[in-house]
């Protein structure tokens, strides 16, 4: 049997603590220091994380509160991550010398919390998970004061060891299985053999332990403040006409354009609220196909939208709210006119869709797609119109055709009509033959489509091409089941 290797503790093996005698290189500024501090042997961590944990009893430990605190905390450090549902992680190593030490940074963040009337516990440790665990442990024991910071990698494992495993927020059944073998604290878990631990409790937990003690790096998503545009304008007198409203909105849109241009962003959604005296505000939402920042275009779309709006009352105030900002890639103007050699429609295409949708509704403008399905009614779908580069499109088109040789090459395609009725229309029949404005002449042979038994929409039909008295070619079918009714399902254009 193989020798069971204990979980390495970073300060023992993987990161041996250098003794003063074998310090890697004498510091240049050694001479400047009057006396080496006793912590000279300590290893300063590359990162120092401050975990903020909101108390459940604070006013609203919601995502919104977290984001507000996160926005405030960006004063202290740019590296702020949210740790939902109730936590915040700040990397503060780089800010220590600006504020004057760990204690000062902690005071700053605590001040932010109390300003937002949030009750919270702060803990400092070299890894994000360790800081969180420390803060959670303090919360569990009910200690009101924040735990003393861990600023030394060498102390990390020693300080974490007595903490209960429950501070790591592992799944409950994992914790129970660990408790059953007598493992209740982080220290006990770290002493378990790696291979067995991974096998019995999952690699995710092993990786969590590695990140906890700094053996594996722990990348965090940086929190970015969501910037939105929001302006409200009170009107001097109440307005009723849409044209006058648009004139009032014009400067707001101009401001929005400048706001977006400064950030190199566009919006995908824009909401215009119109306040009335008595009834709730009228909302007018604009959804765009591509990020837009041009005030003139936005004004044109909004005008289209407003003209379709029925105002219940005169308007006394209006407000413009942007949706989330989306980075916008500016494209260069084309040398060719559209339609000329090389003149594509990349720029005009989204504008056209937006203009049509603003007036006709989002459902009115669609693209088409083929579905691999033998039932004609299920063989197509609508989709969002493709706004893309022609090169990518042609490549995908080739691929599509390569993967469907049966459709591209074989004969039956000519037997499919260009028009399909949304639902088959019953035809009258005489002597077993279909009629529509006179008898139909069946052309060619039948094509049998019998499928779909697995999902309850089974069909069993014999399809024919038929020509009516006026010369129109129709796609008709006869049910295979009695009473063998005839239906019209398509028209060849």
């Amino acid at each position, binding site marked *: 049997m193989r020798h069971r290797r204990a979980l390495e503790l970073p300060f023992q093996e993987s990161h041996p603590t250098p003794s003063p005698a074998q310090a890697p290189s004498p510091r240049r500024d050694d001479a400047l220091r009057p006396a080496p501090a006793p912590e000279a042997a300590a290893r300063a961590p590359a990162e120092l994380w401050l975990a903020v944990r909101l108390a459940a009893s604070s006013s609203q430990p919601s995502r919104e509160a977290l984001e507000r605190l996160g926005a405030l905390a960006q004063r202290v450090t740019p590296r702020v991550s949210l740790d939902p549902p109730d936590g915040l992680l700040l990397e503060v190593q780089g800010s220590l010398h600006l504020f004057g030490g760990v204690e000062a940074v902690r005071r700053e963040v605590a001040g932010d919390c109390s300003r937002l009337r949030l009750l919270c516990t702060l803990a400092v440790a070299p890894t994000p998970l360790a800081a969180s665990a420390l803060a959670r442990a303090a919360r569990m024991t009910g200690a009101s004061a924040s735990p003393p910071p861990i600023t030394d990698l060498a102390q990390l494992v020693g300080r974490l060891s007595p903490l209960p495993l429950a501070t790591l927020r592992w799944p409950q059944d994992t914790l129970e299985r660990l408790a059953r073998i007598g493992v209740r604290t982080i220290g006990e878990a770290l002493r378990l053999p790696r291979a067995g631990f991974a096998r019995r409790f999952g690699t995710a937990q092993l990786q969590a332990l590695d990140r906890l003690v700094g053996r594996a790096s722990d990348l965090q998503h940086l929190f970015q403040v969501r910037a939105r545009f929001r302006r409200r304008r009170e009107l001097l007198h109440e307005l009723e006409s849409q044209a006058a409203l648009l004139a009032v909105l014009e400067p707001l849109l101009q401001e929005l354009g400048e706001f977006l241009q400064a950030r190199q962003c566009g919006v995908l959604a824009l909401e215009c609220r119109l306040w009335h005296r008595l009834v709730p505000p009228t909302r007018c939402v604009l959804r765009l196909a591509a990020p837009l920042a041009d005030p003139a275009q936005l004004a044109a779309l909004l005008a289209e939208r407003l003209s379709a709006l029925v105002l219940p009352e005169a308007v006394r105030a209006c407000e413009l709210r942007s949706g989330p900002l989306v980075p916008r890639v500016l494209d260069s103007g084309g040398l060719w*006119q*559209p*339609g*000329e*050699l*090389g*003149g*594509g*429609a990349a720029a*005009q*295409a989204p*504008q*056209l*869709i937006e*203009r*049509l949708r603003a*007036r*006709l*509704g989002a*459902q*009115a*403008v*669609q*693209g*088409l*797609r*083929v579905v691999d399905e033998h039932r*004609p009614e299920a*063989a*197509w*779908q*609508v989709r969002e*119109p*493709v706004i*893309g580069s*022609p090169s990518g*499109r*042609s490549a*995908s*088109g080739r691929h599509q055709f390569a993967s469907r040789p049966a*459709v*591209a090459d074989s004969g039956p*395609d000519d037997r*499919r*009509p*260009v*028009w*399909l*009725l*949304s639902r088959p229309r019953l035809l009258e029949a005489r002597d077993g033959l279909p009629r529509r404005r006179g008898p139909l002449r069946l052309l060619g042979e039948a094509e049998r489509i019998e499928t779909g038994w697995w999902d309850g929409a089974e069909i069993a039909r014999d399809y024919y091409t038929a*020509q009516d008295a*006026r*010369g*129109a*070619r*129709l796609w008709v079918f006869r049910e295979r089941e009695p009473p063998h009714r005839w239906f019209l399902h*398509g*028209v*060849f*254009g």
Partner: protein
Amino acid sequence: MSRDLSGLLQHPAIWRGRSAAQLRTLPTGFPALDEGLPGGGWPQAGLIEVLPSGFGVGELSLLLPALATTTRRPEARWCAWVAPPLQPFAPALEARGVALERILMVRPPRQDEREKSALWAFEQTLRSGACDIVLGWLRSALPRQIRRLHLAAERGATLGVLFRPRQAARDSSPAALRIAVEPTVGGARVTLLKSRGGARGAIELFSR
């Protein structure tokens, strides 16, 4: 004709009756029809009118080859269908070589102003310059509305195809090209009712 003379005749300031040398066209896919049309195909910019004797007599098959070649070009713009009377069947279009990613369906919602919305959408798609071809189905259109559509199509460098009932052939129309389509035993007969600088008369097409 000597080369010098033919070069001279290409000069844009010289206009000759029945000449369409400067017209940019799309091949129709039917050699017999190409010969009859001015410039040898559908105009690339402008409005044409198709007047079928009934729905489904082959009026769309007439345009499908041009649709297929246009949508497959690398620099293809959209091909919009405004207010189609039925649902276009995607597998059939794909089988006839039309690139479905370039198809844009515009269906005005069913309401009183449907016809008005369809006319507006038709003009917008033609004018935008985002489409190569716009197919539109209108029940009725006044000559001045058709004139607007034609100007919009020329501005957007788009081929607009207006499908109207055969009865509309009696009305005058500013469209550049008007053709009537009738079914025959093995195909369709296309009659050029009006064609600027092209031939007139009936042309027998495709056997089906």
